[in-house]
């Protein structure tokens, strides 16, 4: 009898632990699939994302102070997802609203946009390259050769956004650019700017955690 009780207790605890561990292991931000328009093969997708200095308690309970990317879902609300599903061989028009200050690049070479269709437009002006101390973040899909820069909000700017969600009334910069998704595949995207405050080389925490400054582009 006692033995049975012990066995049941052990089983319950084991199940709970197993559930926790498995939820950690497969844990990931939910995949987001933007609406695609146009015929198959020549599809176009509009992707609107924002970068914010701190994701804030309402969107991330465990790391509220981490810098993060957010995406605007099909209902027009900001949600924290960095795993995006895009159609193959599609034209993707990306709009980035940046509410974050400058961090600076370790490798100045990454200050020039690469692999885009046309030029990257920052607040209406085409961008050649940013000086190394300027970039706030980058949006890069190395396997597709895509690299876009995110220009910073000046330190002097009024009405800065401390943590997400931010409103368009707050100081921000607007980047728009276009790239092609290649063949089907499972591509990673990341930020090259060491923007993780408090980590050696600024490259820990959010820079090495999917859901903040890293994510996947599932091209299907």
């Amino acid at each position: 009898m006692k033995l049975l009780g012990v066995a049941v207790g052990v089983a319950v605890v084991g199940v709970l632990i197993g559930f926790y561990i498995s939820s950690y292991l497969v844990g990931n931000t939910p995949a987001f699939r933007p609406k695609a328009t146009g015929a198959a093969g020549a599809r176009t997708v509009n992707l609107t994302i924002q970068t914010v200095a701190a994701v804030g308690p309402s969107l991330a309970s465990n790391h509220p102070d981490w810098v993060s990317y957010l995406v605007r879902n099909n209902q027009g609300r900001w949600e924290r997802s960095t795993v995006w599903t895009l159609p193959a061989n599609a034209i993707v028009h990306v709009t980035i609203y940046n509410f974050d200050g400058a961090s600076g690049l370790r490798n100045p070479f990454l200050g020039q946009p690469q692999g885009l269709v046309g030029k990257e437009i920052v607040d209406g002006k085409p961008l050649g390259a940013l000086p190394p101390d300027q970039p706030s973040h980058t949006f890069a899909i190395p396997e597709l050769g895509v690299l876009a820069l995110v220009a910073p909000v000046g330190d002097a700017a009024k009405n800065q956004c401390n943590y997400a969600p931010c409103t368009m009334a707050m100081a921000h910069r607007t980047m728009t650019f276009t790239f092609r998704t290649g063949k089907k595949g499972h591509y990673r995207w990341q930020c090259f700017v060491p923007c993780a405050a408090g980590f050696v080389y600024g490259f820990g925490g959010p820079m090495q955690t999917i859901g903040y400054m890293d994510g996947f582009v599932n091209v299907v």
Partner: protein
Amino acid sequence: MSSQPRSVEGGPAHGRRFLTAWLVLSLILSPLVAIYLGPAIPPGNGSVEATGQVFDNEVLVTFATPICIFVVLFLLYAVFSFRSRTVEIVDGPPVRGDSRIQIAWMVVTTVAVLALAAFGSYELLVDGAGGGQGPNAAFLPAGHSQAMDVQVIGQQWEFTYRYPTLGGLETPHLMLPANTLIRLHVTSLDAIHSFWAYQLGVKADANPGTDNIVYVTTKGPRSFDIHCAELCGLWHGYMFDTGQVVEQSAFTAWAKQQQTYFAPVAKYLPAYSTTYLPDPQRRAG
């Protein structure tokens, strides 16, 4: 509990029988391995160094064959011919060693090991064998003074490349001229990476603040895979790339095209240097 042992004398001449079997098998198998298996071992003939590695592997695998046969055959022979066939426990002969066998074994293994080490050292020192040899190695390949400099910069998580001979051009693609002795300067900006150009037989760790030099002599035009071979964080598994070896003419054309494409950022690049140590970032994200 232990009864009288069987006498050592009598019974077939196991020793001679085993040694003959081993000799025959080795004489048959080792050449086969050397001829068929050896040349098939990667990394192939993408560069002079890679060819050298293939030869090295061929020698090693040929050398390993008789040893492998010896131990396995010995085990099988002993297991099958010395298993006890009695119900009650019978002890074997109380043999406690044989100095002649011991000395012979020591001599053979020592000679073999020294030969191997000498061979490996020679193979290593003639051309560096495609391994990273640090900023100031004593042994350099012939004609290293005319080698073409190319810098490999590892960062989390992408390799970029600089060509000091092309005005410090930096590009995300590795393009190498054919039939040339290249001097790769491998360094890193943050964590430890390892630059592995598989078909070229090149591997060199990228340490921050270190100029890890590796020489490679390209052959004909081809493409080759690039991996990061040292755990460097989240996207280590995605830190791969493809490089090209092309004819000299194509190389110059490509270089010109890259210089125009990356003109905007050129003015922001730091002066070419063997290592870069940017200040640690302490600003708010």
